[in-house]
């Protein structure tokens, strides 16, 4: 009379384990990963906002003002990309990143674009899964010292204490330079540049080192800027370039050509003030840039007004430089290497044709 008793099902333990393990491993074995069939461009259009990785505050490159609005040549570049893709220079989310986490943020998809005065090096380009799109600022590493220690050249810094930012190329360059010149030094590497600058200002170090543009910017923040001098020499080449994730060529092309469009605009004399009259220009280069002729915007996956919007809302490269770094800013940095190739500088963009 035990018909109520259910037939017992015998599980072999090994069989059970095998089932569970197979079930769990199936996704791995077949490499079904979070599919990223969608390109970055579609993703940005869908969410209608561009996420852009910037510094935690470096005047001239990317720094928020007292109203929380970001300024700087890198912040401008983010806006230019946003306005080209989304038509709105404010459809943008700035993500402040430390030097340490910037590449991970880009690799993991937390940001779409890294415009954070980042030096383009072979290792970063090849081993980090990221793609540099072209230098928007040619820089070199320099040193700032107190005037009263009487140093006029980097060569005289033998035995000095040096403050630097951790996880940057500057640490490597200092090591290379002092080693190859047989000079001694002590380095203190801080996680944030504010901490490094504060320690230098307090006298912990004889010199603070970073890219020369950064030195001019940081000097404004010292207690007595006039008591410090930026040494003339540079000990390295630092092409600072925005970067995108590797493997999405469509997106890389868009970002690259926004940069080139700003350069070409300066070269052709098109700026945010005269752009309306320039549309009537007979110069075919200008007509192609502004989308009056040809369909260059469409081949990028945008519309033909893409460059017009960038120049109208953000300006050409020269305007952005002047406003943030050059004569129109507090930093008053010369164009130098960053002049157009036609003016003896290095900024050169392929033609739009």
């Amino acid at each position, binding site marked *: 009379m035990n018909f109520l008793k259910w037939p017992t099902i015998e599980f072999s333990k090994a069989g059970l384990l095998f089932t569970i*393990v197979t079930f769990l491993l199936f996704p791995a074995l077949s490499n079904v*990963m979070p599919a990223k069939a969608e390109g970055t461009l579609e993703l940005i259009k869908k969410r209608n906002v561009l996420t852009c990785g910037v510094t935690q505050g470096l005047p001239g490159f990317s720094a928020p003002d007292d109203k929380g609005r970001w300024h700087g040549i890198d912040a401008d570049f983010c806006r230019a990309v946003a306005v080209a893709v989304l038509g709105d220079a404010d459809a943008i989310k700035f993500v402040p990143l430390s030097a340490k986490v910037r590449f991970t943020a880009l690799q993991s998809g937390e940001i779409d674009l890294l415009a954070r005065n980042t030096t383009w090096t072979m290792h970063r380009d090849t081993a980090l899964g990221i793609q540099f799109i072209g230098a928007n600022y040619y820089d070199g590493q320099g040193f700032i010292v107190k005037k009263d220690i009487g140093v006029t050249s980097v060569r005289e810094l033998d035995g000095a204490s040096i403050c630097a930012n951790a996880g940057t190329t500057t*640490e490597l360059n200092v090591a*290379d330079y002092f080693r190859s010149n047989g000079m001694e030094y002590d380095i203190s590497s801080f996680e944030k540049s504010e901490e490094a600058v504060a320690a230098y200002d307090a006298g912990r170090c004889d010199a603070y080192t970073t890219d020369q543009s950064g030195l001019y910017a940081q000097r404004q923040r010292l207690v007595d800027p006039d008591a410090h001098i930026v040494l003339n020499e540079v000990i390295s080449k630092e092409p600072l370039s925005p970067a995108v994730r590797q493997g999405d060529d469509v997106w890389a092309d868009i970002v690259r050509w926004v940069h080139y469009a700003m350069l070409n605009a300066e070269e052709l004399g098109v700026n945010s003030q005269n752009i309306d009259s320039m549309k009537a220009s007979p110069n075919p280069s200008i007509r192609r840039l502004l989308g009056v002729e040809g369909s260059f915007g469409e081949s990028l996956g945008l519309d033909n007004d893409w460059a017009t919007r960038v120049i109208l809302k953000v300006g050409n490269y020269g305007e952005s430089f002047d406003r943030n770094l050059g004569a129109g800013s507090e930093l008053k940095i010369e164009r130098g290497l960053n002049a157009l190739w036609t003016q003896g500088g290095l900024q050169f963009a392929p033609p739009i044709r």
Partner: protein
Amino acid sequence: MVSAFIGLVWWLIDNTVANLARQNVATGFGFLDNNTGFDINQKLIAYDETSSYLRLLLVGLLNTAIVSVLGILLATVIGFMVGLARLSDNWLVSKLAFIYVEIFRNLPLLIQILFWYVLLIELLPHPKKSFSLWEVFFLNNRGLYLPWFTTLPGGGYLLWVLGLFGAGWFYVAHKARKMRELTGHNKAYARNYILIGVICLGGYLSLWGVPFEADLPALKGFNFRGGLSFTPEFVALLVALSLYTASFIAEIVRAGVLSVSKGQFEAAKALGLPTSVSMNKVIIPQAMRVIIPPLTSQYLNLTKNSSLAAAIAYPELVSVFAGTALNQTGQAVEIIFITMSIYLFLSLLTSFLMNTYNARVALVEK
């Protein structure tokens, strides 16, 4: 359950590796052999720009270890003193201890670290105007410089022998105590041991000369060179960690002492034991049973808190390895994995040592 867990872990690892490969991010542990290319400001073993990342890992680990071990010792001493002071009958002493505890355990540790660091580098003078004592001790905002020595040939060997001799002394002292407890007679083991040692050392030195050379700090250019030096980063971190953790330890000690029943105090008093003896021989040993387990947690906290040092450029494990090295190589997954494993190992080691000690002092139920 276990196999499901292992399966899950394996799936995570496999997925990560596949994703990294798809993004063309370098993977694997091969980078540990590469040159680091950068220098750091405190190294207990030889290290320079040409050393490998593996070496860097070791240097960072030693920096973490030294600040943790010294911090644990200091925090324990201060913590016991403050904890007992709080129980003092003296109103002033007990209130001062109370104020100490409430200040140090209620301020965030990072702020305390920055406070001590800024204090050191702002208040101390520039190397050219250093405070000095007899022209051999120097203190300035680049560090504290003490006279030290360098070894000549044979010196390293002699140091090892001296170290072994020192370790031997503990054994001899232990033996002598056992003997005294057993027979009631004092044997001059320890005295004879030291006498023999001194004679041997004297003989060695008169035969071969002193194999050490004084290494005095001296101002060369911008900074002092030579001697034994402690950077302001190290001192600030050590002070902050010790004082912060000591405030917790003080409360643990107080709780431990209060947990011993009042009858024990009274019994000790009735036997005519002076306060210090009754504290050391009767109360503290019983309080230890309550103190040890939470004390272990504080030791673990101190070790892990040392990773806050990245803010003041002290080159410990997280700052140089999980920070700079991570950024230079870009191999976040591997480096974070290694770093986590090391902290886990350090914590388990501390727990093991403390548990062993705990087993020795624990109350044996009969």
